[in-house]
């Protein structure tokens, strides 16, 4: 009898891929850390971005902007160039404070870190340095298939005391490349809020880091509550040369609209 039970258990284990392919916690943590590390640059970062917002019942909007990062100081500047009505607007993150500047009123306003950039579904974190390992505890869910890709499905929960927009994330990491392919953000209530796809990753060599820096060339964000709303972010022209320190100042952004 016991040999039958043992046999059944072995068969079940073989039939259940989760159990058979389960990653241990060390590996899970390493995957998340790797995700952060490969996107991090020890020096500066500059890129051109396009944000296309499709919202039901509204005209499509396309923004063009440049974002600048200095990861070692946690500084971020986003300057919008187009459309004309939005040119000169921008965001500046300094010492964990996020500010928005509107040249039409010449005023700076403090915003939260979770701000929807220009009212689109994209957020600061989509442009900023990846801090998943710092902000979340990850656990393995299962190995899965995403289209033709073999992926690790992970669940990340926000660490206590850390302010994040979505306290629970699910991620699908390409088992072959280690790139994130899909991410789902959940509200505190457990409701799925948005699904993000990262169909294209690119890399560029960083002299300051001495290795390659990865960035998603395209981010497709689908609003899961307001079905039909979606945002596409395209990141191009990544430049890792060092930036002038005065870029990360309010005066610099103000000067751009004079």
């Amino acid at each position, binding site marked *: 009898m016991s040999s039958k039970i043992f046999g059944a258990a072995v068969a079940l284990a073989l039939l259940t891929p989760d159990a058979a392919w389960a990653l241990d916690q060390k590996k899970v943590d390493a995957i998340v850390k790797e995700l952060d590390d490969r996107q991090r640059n020890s020096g500066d970062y500059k890129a051109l971005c396009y944000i296309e917002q499709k919202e*039901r*019942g509204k005209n499509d909007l396309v923004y063009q902007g440049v974002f600048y990062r200095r990861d070692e100081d946690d500084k971020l500047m986003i300057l919008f160039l187009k459309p004309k009505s939005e040119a000169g607007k921008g965001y500046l993150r300094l010492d*964990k*404070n996020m500010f928005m500047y509107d040249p039409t009123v010449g005023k700076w*306003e*403090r915003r*939260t*870190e*979770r701000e929807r950039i220009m009212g689109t579904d994209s957020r600061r974190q989509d442009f900023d340095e990846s801090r998943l390992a710092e902000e979340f505890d990850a656990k393995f869910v299962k190995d899965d298939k995403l289209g033709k890709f073999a992926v690790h499905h992970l669940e990340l929960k*926000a660490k206590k005391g850390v*302010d*994040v*927009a*979505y*306290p629970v994330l699910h991620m699908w990491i390409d088992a072959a490349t280690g790139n994130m392919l899909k991410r789902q*953000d959940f*509200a*505190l*209530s457990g*409701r799925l*809020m948005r699904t993000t796809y990262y169909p294209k990753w690119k890399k560029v060599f960083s002299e300051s880091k001495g290795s390659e820096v990865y960035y998603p060339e395209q981010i497709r964000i689908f609003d899961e*509550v*307001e*079905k039909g709303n979606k945002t596409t972010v395209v990141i191009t022209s990544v430049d890792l040369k060092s930036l002038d320190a005065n870029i990360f100042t309010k005066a610099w952004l103000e000067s751009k609209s004079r």
Partner: protein
Amino acid sequence: MGMLIQIAARNLVKARLRTLFLGSALTLVTALLILLLALSQGVTDTMIRSATTLASGHVNVAGWFKAKVGDSAPLVTQREKIRKIVEENTPGLDFVVDRGRGWGRVISDTSSLNAGLTGIDIDTEARLTETLQLAEESEYVEGGSAELHGKLEDMARPDGMLLFAAQAKRLEVRVGDVVTVTVELMSGARNTAEFTVVAIAKDLGMMSNWSVFVNSAGIRKLYALSDDVTGALEIHLEDHTKATEVMKHLTGVFEENGYEVMDHDPQAFFMKFETVQGEDWTGQKLDLTIWRDEVSYMSWLLLLIDAGAFLLMVILSLIIAVGITNSMMMSVRERTSEIGTLRAIGMSRSRVLLMFLTESLLLGLGSTLLGGLLGMGLAYGLNAAAIPVTSTAVRLILMSDTLHLVVTPGQLVLATLAFSIVASLAAFLPAFRASRLQPVKAIQHAS
């Protein structure tokens, strides 16, 4: 003086055509002014009614809680204790309700809108249930019937939500439909909850565009708050004109009881998030306001109507002044010999001056009184007719679906006095000229 009034009255009757023409003009402009003032008062009254039904008491004990310096949550902790202080220390208290406050996005299957969320306990909201009226289905559904759906009492459901007709129309929902509300918590995390539309009320002016009522337990759950936390204690007074006085009194009472009270900032609570975020403190501070502060963002509307009324009053006064001056000059010219005779038999210059001024004052008083009564009658008539306002833009400005005019005794006194004084002043120059006439020359003028 009696003699002067008698002469003035006789002169007015004698020149009956001129008196009729001038008197009619004065009557009409006074009636017009009364109507405009009644409109302004009507909008003010609607604003008070909307504000104190939807978003505010006459006085509010609200507050801000900051767990970290960069936070700003519109919350009041220890609500029972604070309520007790309010109940024991508010002079002229009518009743108190406590309401949750929030700001979120209401999402239906087809549309969405941003709205202020007000958490209510329907059993304590007698005023609200008296004021709100259920909307007919046709008010929010194209080709809908005149039927009323839903019940305000169903707001007792923990997932109950009350929308206004314009919101229901925009969201394309009916009673019984479920909508999702998304909010940002104090920690920055997003949260959601499902609410069922249990009632759809008639619009209550501009403010009902962005006010949504939900069950108080529902809003607490949405914001993950304990039972002893609320958004604001809304105090209703027997006499709303005492609001500022009561607010100052309560500020002192709370400070004596060891509470930190913010400096009075006459703005709606949702306009203070950034200010509070930028302040360098943590913990709880109370924020006392009056109803006018909570609708301060609409004060431009009253200012606009009042400025319009003032401008009209100035223009009408000028027209009246020119009319009266002209008419009196003609009168002086026609009666030059009479003035000469009066002066010759001993009437003093000042009496002549007074005689003409009295004539003008009599005309002014009589006409403006008549105009005031006419304006009042018209206002009551228009109110009784409940003329519907079909234009959305005008509805937004008037804050009402029907024309609502309120006449007060103050307005009648103001209009009557103002135009009577204008009429008298306008007559001063011709009267002065008449008083300066030499009796001999005046008599010769006749021949």
